């Protein structure tokens, strides 16, 4: 374990996106470390049981500021994000990922300026980033998700540099694990197909290389980064959070089938026009800077935990 439970004991932590895949895992770690966890939620009914609820619209920074003023948070973990979308939801992606991040940063600046804020971003391996290294002027093929997450990073940079907020940016790779309810994604889609006795299907080429990381590893990285930023001298730190090797989509499906004892099933290919960032790109993945964190959950272990969650959900 890289993060330290002692660091988090009795710390006051605000989490956005607490009900999401990453959020669930982060909240669990925080609970284990006996931190005081508050979830920022739209309605009290959507608050995880283990958290206090802070009911507020994230795009209303005045209301959010007021709420934050009365509680002094040591950490704000911004994990909420509208993820990959198509169709008319593109605007909602911008609203949630840009406006949401903006108003949260502003509320923290005005009412909890000493808090450490962590932004969950994307490593750009999936979707249409076109890589981090290209100059802005040349970026043309960029989807709404990638564009909105890049904007969120720009916002975080700006608030760190212009207003001195302590900010950590975690560029996360493709996560898998329990609580992922988006069955269009490969791992949940495959598991649920198999649980229903159906052949799994690929939406992209099975040869596409992908970096998969188990969600608990990512959650530890978030806490580890938060500790580093809180204890560090710089106001801004950006790290890459990914597993140490690539695997193809085909290999992932094979691993799931093996794990579920259904190697007899033959996956089928369904080609979709999914060019707006739903499909993983085959761009070579750069090895990020070594910042002292390593994943430690093996693929087998991660898949077992993931599969058992879906089994439980299906029997419920």
């Amino acid at each position, binding site marked *: 374990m890289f993060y330290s439970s002692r660091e988090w004991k009795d710390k006051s932590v605000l989490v956005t996106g607490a009900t999401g895949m990453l959020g669930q895992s982060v909240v669990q770690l925080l609970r284990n470390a006996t931190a005081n966890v508050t979830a920022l939620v739209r309605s009290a009914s959507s608050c995880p049981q283990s958290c206090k609820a802070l009911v507020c619209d994230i795009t209303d*920074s005045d209301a959010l500021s007021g709420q934050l003023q009365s509680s002094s948070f040591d950490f704000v973990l911004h994990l909420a994000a509208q993820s990959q979308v*198509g*169709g*008319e939801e*593109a*605007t909602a992606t*911008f*609203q949630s990922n*840009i*406006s949401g991040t*903006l*108003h949260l940063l*502003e509320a923290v600046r005005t009412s909890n300026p000493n808090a450490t804020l962590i932004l969950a971003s994307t490593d750009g391996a999936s979707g249409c980033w076109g890589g*981090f*290294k*290209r*100059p*802005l*002027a040349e*970026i*043309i*093929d*960029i*989807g*709404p998700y990638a*564009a909105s997450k*890049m*904007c969120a*990073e*720009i*916002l975080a*940079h*700006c*608030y*760190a*540099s*212009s*207003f001195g907020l302590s900010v950590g940016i975690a560029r996360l790779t493709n996560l898998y694990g329990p609580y992922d309810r988006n069955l269009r994604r490969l791992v949940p889609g495959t598991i649920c197909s198999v649980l229903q006795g159906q052949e799994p299907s690929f939406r992209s080429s099975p040869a596409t290389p992908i970096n998969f990381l188990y969600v608990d590893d990512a959650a530890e990285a978030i806490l580890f980064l938060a500790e580093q930023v809180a204890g560090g001298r*710089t106001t*801004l730190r*950006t790290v890459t959070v990914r597993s140490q090797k690539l695997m193809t989509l085909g290999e992932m499906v094979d691993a799931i089938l093996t794990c579920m004892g259904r190697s007899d099933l033959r996956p089928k290919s369904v080609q979709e*026009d999914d*060019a*707006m960032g739903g499909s993983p790109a085959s761009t070579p993945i750069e090895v990020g800077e070594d910042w002292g964190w390593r994943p430690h959950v093996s693929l087998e272990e991660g898949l077992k935990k993931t599969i058992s969650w879906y089994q439980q959900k299906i029997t419920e």
Partner: protein
Amino acid sequence: MDMNNMDNNLSSFYAGKTVLVTGNTGFKGSWLCAWLDQLGAKVVGFALEPPGQPNNFEASRLIDRITHVNGNVCNREEVGRCFDQAKPDVVLHLAAQALVRQSYDDPVETFDANVMGTVNVLDAARHCGSVKAVVSITSDKCYRNQNWIWGYRENDELGGYDPYSASKACSELVVRCYSDSRFQKVTGFDEFLPIASTRAGNVIGGGDWARDRIIPDIVRAIVNEEDIVIRSPNATRPWQHVLEPLSGYLWLAAKMAEDPEKYLGGWNFGPADEDMWTVEAMVSELLKRWGPANTALKIEEDSSGAESKLLRLDCTKAQEYLGWRAIWSVTEALDAISDWYKAFLHEPGRDMYPVVISQINQYTNRAAEKGLTWATKS
């Protein structure tokens, strides 16, 4: 159409077209509306109240000459309603919170206006069904930080990430996303809508009264008989008269409407490289034009080293594809500027529209002499 209307490639495109200009009450927007009016376009403006008193929008009585809709680009419904009613052929999106200092005071307003405002305008342009071309105006500031999104460095100097520049980088990303043909298709729009973004240099001209900008500061100093203090006399800026980038925006939109696939991406409309002036030279040239005024130039050099380096905009793309070039030298621009303010100060409350139009005509004539396609007749 009035007598001043000149017959050229711009007017043959814009005559009778409905053009929606956001931010039309601002300095740049007001000049653009006057020009479009002169070209015979039906102009619909969507903007907040003019930024303060005085301002070129009111000084040129544009409220009587165009259709002006009071509204905020941050308000999605207002924007949508305006577009649906106007059914514009061309959209020129200028509305922005454009002041760096203001962006520190109110970062939320700045990001809302410059980023979500752009989202709202582009969505409205897609949905209203009539638009043939959108030109979104950003700033050269989005370039200053070109590297920082891609490669973060711990030792980056503070202040390089001011909210204004950051908001402009975000709005560039939004435009890139919306202009992508796959994005348009996936989001349910089969007919491709060309969207481009443009950047200009430090725009100067008559009728600017914004805070913290050099020309308005000089004019205020002259009016108040105060000295003008400059802190970075040796810094050079890509100064250009407001009509320079406006000619680029107008010609670009016309070409985009003609050939939607050909003119995508970002466009720079900056001054000629050989015509870069220092702050000191520019200020003293302008002061000279007022004769023996009670305003002196004082230099209090800022030794903090925070001054940013010279910014140059590479305008090769605009030259190659649009045949666009800068027309006025800084000297000519300063002549036009001092003429404008002198006319205004000589007779406060007069209608400045004739002065604005006569400067547009002078500029167009000069461009025609130089053989620029937009200013000539094909």
